[in-house]
């Protein structure tokens, strides 16, 4: 199938107009030796055939519809109201470009402005950008922003080991070229339960940023106020990585001293889609607004004095500052930010609180049930948690999960993959999509496969 509309007559007329005999003549500047290589690709499919092929490929997967899933670890299987996709499919949204021409992009611009506002409301921060690629790259951008905030004079980044392991890896990748940045607190030899005193002990006057997670990667909720005060006493910035869904219930980081809030926006109406595209939330205080990487939309007026929205503070960005820019980001997750904007608008204050509570309650029911199974215990039983918790299992998690597949259950995340110090520990996530029957079935299967 081709989407080019040219008829044979069109091509002839167009060639005549430009004075060329044939199409090949258009490519004479390509070195002859390399011109027109053969491409070995399968025969072209029609729409009918493509649909059948893609359906067949998709059917080789088992989905969270085919299996009861307790997987989370930063990405959650929440219900997505159908109105969201219905609106995302408006081609005025998805077939438009970055809103560099505000007169004909007010839809995208207003949606981003509302997204920024909703993220500020949710996190308790003053300003949000138009989004980064995902939670992990938002974390890396926070590190780089903090580094530049101190003009490179503070080189220490203190990162809790209970920040999402992927975020920590991406931070390491992004900072390779900043040769004096030193990342501490997250190395493999550190105890994963490294408490606040030990993290605080790493802070000093060279610290540019403290990065912590709330709820942390194990699902636990801690009071970070004292730790944040200690970081501030050294003049360091503090970034808090959040699960935005939890903020339907929990005190936002803006109220306990965070300078930067980052997070994975996927829980807010974005499909699992095997890891992407997702949404990198990035919000901060107004004092730092000029240090933010990425797009920002602001309000203004047009020539007639009418309210309008535009991309603003663009002098920070790569297309203006080139090598002097602090980030190369040249897109935002436009459509994903739109999805979360619609999600938060539909649910509103009561809906988001309700879904957060459902996740909390069902997760607590699951933890309660699992703690009664012989051989299983809840690792941090005295610490409050949101919708995810660590289970100590009687056998390696990989073996349990393999056996659970026969019960059409996707067991929780195997923590030993990233935390060798936690063998036999499973991170169990529960969302509002799971029923009591699903949770009961999981507990029964756990019992059965570990007997």
């Amino acid at each position, binding site marked *: 199938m081709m989407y080019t509309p040219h008829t044979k007559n069109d091509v002839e007329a167009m060639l005549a107009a430009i004075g060329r005999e044939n199409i090949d003549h258009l490519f004479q500047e390509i070195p002859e030796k390399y011109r027109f290589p053969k491409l070995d690709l399968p025969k072209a499919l029609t729409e009918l055939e493509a649909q059948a092929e893609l359906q067949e490929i998709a059917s080789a997967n088992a989905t969270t519809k085919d299996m009861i899933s307790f997987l989370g670890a930063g990405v959650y299987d929440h219900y997505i109201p159908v109105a969201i996709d219905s609106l995302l499919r408006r081609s005025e949204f998805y077939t438009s470009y970055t809103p560099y021409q505000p007169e004909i992009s007010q839809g995208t611009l207003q949606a981003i402005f509302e997204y920024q506002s909703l993220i500020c409301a949710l996190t308790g921060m003053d300003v949000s950008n138009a989004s980064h690629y995902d939670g992990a790259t938002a974390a890396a951008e926070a590190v780089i922003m903090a580094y530049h905030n101190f003009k490179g004079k503070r080189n220490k980044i203190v990162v809790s080991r209970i920040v999402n392991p992927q975020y920590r890896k991406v931070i390491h990748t992004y900072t390779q070229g900043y040769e004096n940045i030193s990342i501490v607190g997250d190395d493999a030899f550190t105890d994963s339960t490294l408490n606040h005193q030990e993290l605080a002990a790493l802070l000093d006057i060279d610290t540019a940023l403290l990065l912590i997670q709330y709820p942390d990667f194990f699902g636990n909720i801690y009071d970070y106020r004292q730790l944040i005060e200690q970081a501030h006493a050294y003049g360091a910035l503090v970034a808090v990585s959040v699960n935005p869904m939890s903020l339907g219930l929990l005190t936002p980081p803006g109220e306990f001293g965070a300078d930067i809030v980052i997070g994975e926006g996927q829980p807010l109406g974005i499909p699992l889609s095997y890891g992407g595209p997702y949404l990198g939330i990035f919000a901060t205080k107004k004092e730092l607004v000029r240090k933010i990487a990425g797009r920002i939309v602001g309000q203004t007026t047009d020539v007639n004095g009418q309210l309008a929205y535009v991309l603003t503070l663009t002098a920070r960005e790569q297309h203006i500052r080139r090598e002097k820019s602090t980030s190369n980001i040249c897109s935002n997750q436009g459509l994903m930010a739109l999805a979360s904007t619609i999600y938060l608008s539909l649910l509103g204050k009561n809906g988001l609180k309700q879904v957060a509570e459902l996740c909390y309650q069902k997760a607590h029911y699951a933890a309660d049930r699992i703690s009664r199974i012989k051989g299983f215990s809840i690792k941090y039983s005295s610490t409050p948690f949101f919708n995810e918790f660590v289970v100590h299992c009687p056998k390696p998690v990989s073996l349990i*999960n393999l056996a659970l597949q026969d019960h059409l259950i996707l067991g929780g995340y195997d923590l030993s993959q990233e935390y060798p110090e936690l063998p036999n520990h499973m991170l169990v996530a529960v969302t509002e999509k799971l029923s009591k029957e699903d949770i009961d079935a999981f507990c029964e299967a756990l019992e059965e496969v570990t007997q």
Partner: protein
Amino acid sequence: MIEKTVFELSAEGRTGFQFPDLDVPSYELPQDFLRQQLPLPEMSEIDVVRHFTRISQKNYAVDIGLYPLGSCTMKYNPKINEEMARLPGFALTHPHQPIVTTQGNLFLMYTLQEWLKEISGFAAVTLEPAAGAQGELVGALIIRKYHHQNRQVGRKNILIPDSAHGTNPATSSMVGFDVISIPSDSRGNVSIEAIAPYCDDQLAGLMLTNPNTLGLFDENVTKVIDMIHQAGGLVYGDGANMNALLGIVKPAELGIDIMHFNLHKTFSTPHGGGGPGSGPVGVTTTLKDFLPDPIVTVIEEGDEETPPLFGFSHPAQTIGQIKSFYGHFGVLIRAYTYIAMHSADGLRNISEMAVLNANYLLSKVRQKYTLPYERQCMHEFVVEGVWDDVPGIHALDIAKRLMDFGYHPPTNYFPLIVHEALMIEPTETESKENLDAFAETLNRIADEARLNPELLHSAPHSTPVGRCDELKAARDLVLCCWSDNLSE
């Protein structure tokens, strides 16, 4: 018409979604951690649907008309791609699922890697980068690590032509390179004379966009690449303009070492109002061990009875992970569908028609607009949006006036080396009639500039808002619904 924001449309007690009741016993909430206020809007579903429908109608889009943004490749986004990306078999898979439960996803990614290798000539491809700019970051980190592995840590100079996208120098700075801007020669090619002095043991590499942002195929390309290689440097190819080269030339065969693709340009995945994009990166055999972690691979060969088992491998010298998981999978499905429906002939047809369209359009407007480089163009071209006899008219005025005729303007003021640049890329999905009508409009605007320049200065007249005060936006900084003025 001003559209109120979701906060202004809110009314206490409304909701647009209802969840089922709790079906498990109730547990005590963590009282010390509960938030006191959640200042989100309250709206009914119809209010939400109408609001977003109304604001959508203030956007211009490919589905409305010609969108000739240079170097952005705003081609038609096939509807079948959207359907395929939403198949529950794909959309409802969790990235932490065991690989035996996601063989469909892994097959699709593996096959797409193979196809991109075939199209570009590279030995290995990663699908992980989230966008072209992130692909560049991957490339720059690979160049850096490659030199470090070879104990050539002094190689810090990266050469970037002055016609390059801003992301090239910005990316280079992020990895600690020193950016050296290379002027273009009189034919718009990379200047060989300007490169020569930097071909020494300080050279990390060159970032080359070809066809460049002038829409010209670099006539010095193989010579320049040879010079860089001779000096021990690597050549990064910015694949933004790959839409001109499908089945025309394989960039790796020209000698390019690393290149990113923009699936949202060349392979028809939607731009989404600014994202998500997808920027896979191809590399030569020498560099494949440096690719980001992880990469999709066959971990157990199949035979006649059983298909191969797909999984992940971890390149030995990897630069590391650059985002969560494996790439923008939803975008990859769309690109897979597009390539599957085109195959070799179809892909070549795309580039042929893209180049034909650009040259045809150029032939229709070149009498009225100045062409800075008298050459045949590839898939796009740049003209000057300014005339000596009407000095008060600028590229911006032409761009804004085009909106009155129902067009999105071309990219303007880029590349920086062309005075008042208008960079025009019609793409292959526009018909001759559409190009004729657009050319006629451009030419009419050139006439208007003389007859009634005020019409251009005051344009646009027919859009939801008129020209916007960008200085005011940056000065007053109103960045969310309830903040009056952050700059105070």
